[in-house]
């Protein structure tokens, strides 16, 4: 990914540049979609968010000073699109995949456990949730997570620790980070 990111800017009208942009963008779509799905819990909205983020990338990629940071930058754009999508779409809450009442019931069923976990993550502060999803679900290294959320690594780490303590009280943080 890093090697691809160093190729030419897409803003040139040359066909070669368009191809280069396609090569840059293609590997980012899948993680972008997973991030959007985790943030929005809606496949259609997630696809829309990734598409909008891709348009933004198309317009702004040439202005990026450090294209080696392309992946976290793009994921940050996706996160912003998700936020805008949620602001436009709802004001009360997102769907957890199952009704919230059901999710509260302590279930042995894995579907309910998963819904409970998604609900717990969705109740984190927005940036904390983004950090958790990027780190645990997209498996990004902490340095890239920090770039995506625009924080220092130390601040990102402390917020991740705090989120883990909220999600899994009593669990050893270092253990949970694995």
């Amino acid at each position, binding site marked *: 990914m890093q090697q691809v990111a160093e190729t030419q800017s897409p803003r040139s009208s040359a066909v070669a540049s*368009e191809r280069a*942009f*396609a090569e840059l*963008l*293609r*590997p980012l*779509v*899948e993680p972008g*979609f*997973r991030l959007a*799905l*985790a943030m929005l*819990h809606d*496949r259609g909205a997630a*696809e829309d968010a*990734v*598409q909008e983020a*891709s*348009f933004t*990338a*198309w*317009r702004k990629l040439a202005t990026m000073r450090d294209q080696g940071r392309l992946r976290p930058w793009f994921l*940050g754009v996706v*996160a*912003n699109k998700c*936020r*805008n999508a949620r*602001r436009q779409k709802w*004001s009360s809450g997102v769907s957890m*995949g199952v009704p919230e009442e059901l999710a509260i019931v302590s279930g042995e069923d*894995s*579907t309910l*456990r*998963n*819904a409970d*976990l*998604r609900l717990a*993550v969705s109740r984190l*502060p*927005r*940036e904390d949730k983004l950090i*958790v*999803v990027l780190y*645990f*679900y997209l*498996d990004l290294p902490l340095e890239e997570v920090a770039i*995506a*959320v*625009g*924080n*220092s*690594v*130390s*601040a990102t780490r402390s917020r991740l620790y705090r989120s*883990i303590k909220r*999600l*899994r009280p009593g669990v050893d943080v270092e*253990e*949970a980070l*694995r």
Partner: protein
Amino acid sequence: MSLRRELHAAYDELGPQDAGLSERVVNTVERDGPRRAAWSLRMRAPLSLVAVFVVIAVIAGALVGGRLIADWRSLSAPRVPAAPQTPLQKLEARPLHLPTLHSATECVYGPWGTSGDLGTGPLHWSGSAVEIRTAWGSYFHEFLYADGAVTGPILVRARDLIHGQRVVFVGQYAGGPVVGTDVLDGNVVVQHLELVIDSVTPPYAWQIEDGSANGTGCTGWQIDGPGFTETFTL
């Protein structure tokens, strides 16, 4: 099961990615990107003009209105002896030690602390990529934290170093003069010129919200507290 595995299971359950999604997204951008960029440019120029006129009208209104109110108050208000200053008023009385720049090329971010965040201490600023846009301008969620124990109150003020326009604060710690209102996430928020942290308690970290209209991206910040004044540019 580790938290990582649990989260994978929880989110993977929402459904796998459509195999053709990458191609579809890329093709759509290649097809519609130039058209959308042209539309954006056509829209942006007139909107920028409107925004400039609105800002000029607001500033002119504020200046004229402020002068009239000040004159009226000076004539009508009875003279009273000055009250003893509170700790916050003493901080507010400190002048802003922020430079004025002529262009963005003169803007140098810093100074940076050892943690990689802005500010050499005792307080540090940690930014965020999260920008909330409204018709008025843009708001950001930031993070302010101290090296260790500090005492309050803490006063934060900021302004654009090129235009001179003050940064506004909304939310929990917004304080000082009110300069307007806006709608943020569906809620009406009051814009203040100061950020005031009265209750300075562990863990000495605060999430703050600030906003700028038509900012140049170069702002100077001054943090005043008992026994210290700290400035940085971001």
